[in-house]
């Protein structure tokens, strides 16, 4: 073995989007970087619904979106409120994008996307080692000086933990404690094969275009929701729910997903499709409150979801874009030198990430409203259904219908007002 891999400038642990972005930018800045990933390929262990906001790719490198192997550009946003057998869909399609405009968000399949991104990083000089699990940090005199993997030791000036949700490296470094059940949601996802023409037909989109659909009221009352994203030749269908309420619900995430697939609103969308893969993964739900007080210590910093940089906004999970921009900020901090924590905070502030996360801070309160997951979808469906019901009788005023629906759903007016206030305050 040659000498030059004996000690490198930086070791990045985890080839997810945060890790690859960080390693890539460090390599472009001329640093020697080793990127270590436990999966046999980058992306093989990564589970995402798969909507990526492209501003973050452009922050890694201008023009990257165009070069990236994304699935479809999202041109249609849909929200579906459902109960056991009814549904109401709100579908928003924007004005047609001007030719040459970058799509604001795209769908991706991580196995393909991450592998491409890691290839690009390798071409820029990153030394990628896949199939290697990092077991622990090497700490000397209070400073992180390297890693241990499979009994082998490797030293670096800085170790970056980009090992995703529930980062044991950040725990070992003493930056975070154990994750609590309230801090995470559990996500399950299926990729279902459908041919491109069928997808375009069923979702009302053109070639290369796609839809992003959020579903509420399909989680047996448990805090959470479902998503459906269109890929080139498949759709990604998944559910994210709070694990701490699952036992009380009497069902499992898998059971919920299967029930959702059989729902009249969804069945026709995925009819004839075959399931290609099934995966489960945790996702942080505590927003800015879950970000540790310190993000760095001597020779070490934490980035991406390992640092809690993910937003669950109900209508969308933003983890991939925050992973990318935080990975870039980590690289900038290392290049800047000096005190890592200070440099990292400054780079993050420049990226706008903390401001974005703080602005969404109240969402946790909004998402904490229990009635959002069963009662309100049912209530809305009742009201709308009675609005559309026409028979020989004189129609009742809307407010009477609403009150009747509230009574039927056991929601007192003051509860609605209180929830409404929380909702308004949080957004």
């Amino acid at each position, binding site marked *: *073995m*040659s000498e030059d*891999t004996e000690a490198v400038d930086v070791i990045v642990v985890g080839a997810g989007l945060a890790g690859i972005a960080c390693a890539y930018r460090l390599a472009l800045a001329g640093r020697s970087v*080793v990127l*270590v990933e436990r999966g*046999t*390929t980058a992306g*093989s262990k990564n589970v995402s619904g798969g909507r990526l906001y492209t501003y973050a790719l452009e922050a890694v490198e201008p023009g990257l979106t165009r070069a990236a192997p994304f699935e479809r550009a999202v041109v249609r946003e849909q929200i579906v409120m459902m109960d056991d057998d009814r549904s109401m869909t709100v579908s928003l399609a924007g004005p047609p994008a001007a030719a040459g405009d970058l799509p604001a968000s795209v769908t991706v399949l991580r196995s393909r996307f991450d592998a491409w991104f890691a290839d690009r990083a*390798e071409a820029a000089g990153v*030394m*990628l*080692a*896949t*199939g*290697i699990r990092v077991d622990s940090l090497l700490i000397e005199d209070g400073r992180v000086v390297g890693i241990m*993997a*499979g*009994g*082998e030791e*490797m030293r670096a000036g800085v170790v970056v933990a980009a090992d995703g949700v529930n980062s044991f490296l950040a725990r070992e470094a003493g930056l975070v404690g154990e994750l609590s059940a309230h801090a995470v949601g559990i996500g399950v996802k299926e990729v279902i094969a459908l041919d491109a023409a069928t997808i375009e037909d069923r979702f009302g989109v053109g070639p290369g275009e796609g839809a992003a659909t959020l579903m509420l009221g399909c989680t047996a009352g448990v805090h959470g929701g479902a998503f459906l994203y269109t890929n080139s030749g498949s759709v990604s269908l998944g559910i994210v729910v709070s694990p701490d309420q699952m036992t009380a619900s009497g069902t499992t995430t898998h059971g919920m997903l299967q029930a959702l697939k059989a729902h009249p609103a969804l069945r026709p969308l995925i009819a004839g499709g075959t399931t*290609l893969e099934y995966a489960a993964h945790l996702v942080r739900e505590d927003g800015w409150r879950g970000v540790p007080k310190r993000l760095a210590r001597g020779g070490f910093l934490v980035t991406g979801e390992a640092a809690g940089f993910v937003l669950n906004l109900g209508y969308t999970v933003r983890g991939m874009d925050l992973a990318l921009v935080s990975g870039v900020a980590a690289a900038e901090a290392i290049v800047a030198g000096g005190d890592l924590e200070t440099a990292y905070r400054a780079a993050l502030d420049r990226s706008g990430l903390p401001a974005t996360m703080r602005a969404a801070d109240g969402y946790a309160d909004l998402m904490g409203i229990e009635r959002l997951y069963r009662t309100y979808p049912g209530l809305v469906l009742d009201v709308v259904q009675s609005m559309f019901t026409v028979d020989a009788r004189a129609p009742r005023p809307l407010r009477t219908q609403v009150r009747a629906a509230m009574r039927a759903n056991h929601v007192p007016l003051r509860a609605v007002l209180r929830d409404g206030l929380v909702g308004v305050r949080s957004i």
Partner: protein
Amino acid sequence: MCFKWVAAEGELRVDPATRAVDASSARRKISDYDRNTIEAARVAAGSIGSELVGLTFGGPDARTGIKDALARGVDRAVHVVADEGARADGHVTAHVLAAQVRRLEDVDLVLCTEGASDTYAHETGPRLGELLGWPVVTNVRELTVEGRTLRAVRVLGADLETVECDLPALVTVVPEVAPAPIPGLRSVLGAAKKPSEQVPVADLGLPAGAVTARTTVTSFLGYVAARRRVVLADGAAQDKVDALVAGLAQDGVLR
């Protein structure tokens, strides 16, 4: 040594109705047994201070396998790139590998695995040895090289046979020939620094007859083992255990 880039068996999909096998979504890997062969070859090359060249013939995607082979101990890799969509059988593969082996200089020993984990045809090694005009020793589980002599222990059912021959020689090995350790951090990083070369089949200058498959796969169906579906539910635990043992003995599973 020769290795093959194959679809992961565990990820093949069998259509329950037609039994048609779909390998399109299966990930690719170095054939499992070839990993043992790489290790045996690494040890053999090390023992005589020779360079170990890993040789593979496969489509463009086999490139990914090169890195894995280098991490596992191959010093240099040569990938003969098959034309997209071209069919290859044992005849074609052996001709291609033989042509590439001849292009390498001073080859003393070629190791192949007894069979690949996808086709398990047992023919590439012997055919290759014949084309090269070298002695062929099959079913080898132990090998040593001393001077210009190869000594190999062959497995014959429950017996072992020791064979000697002159180099150059071709040996096909069984998986027990060596363990297949998972490469560590340094080996994986080191792989990126080792040389590898891609050679289009056309560059080998083989006649059309040598690169035209002689056999055609006409169907590829999943094999569903007929299960006996015997449930031993009645009686006390001891009776059930006795019935299980008797049943297994009857089927020759227990002796």
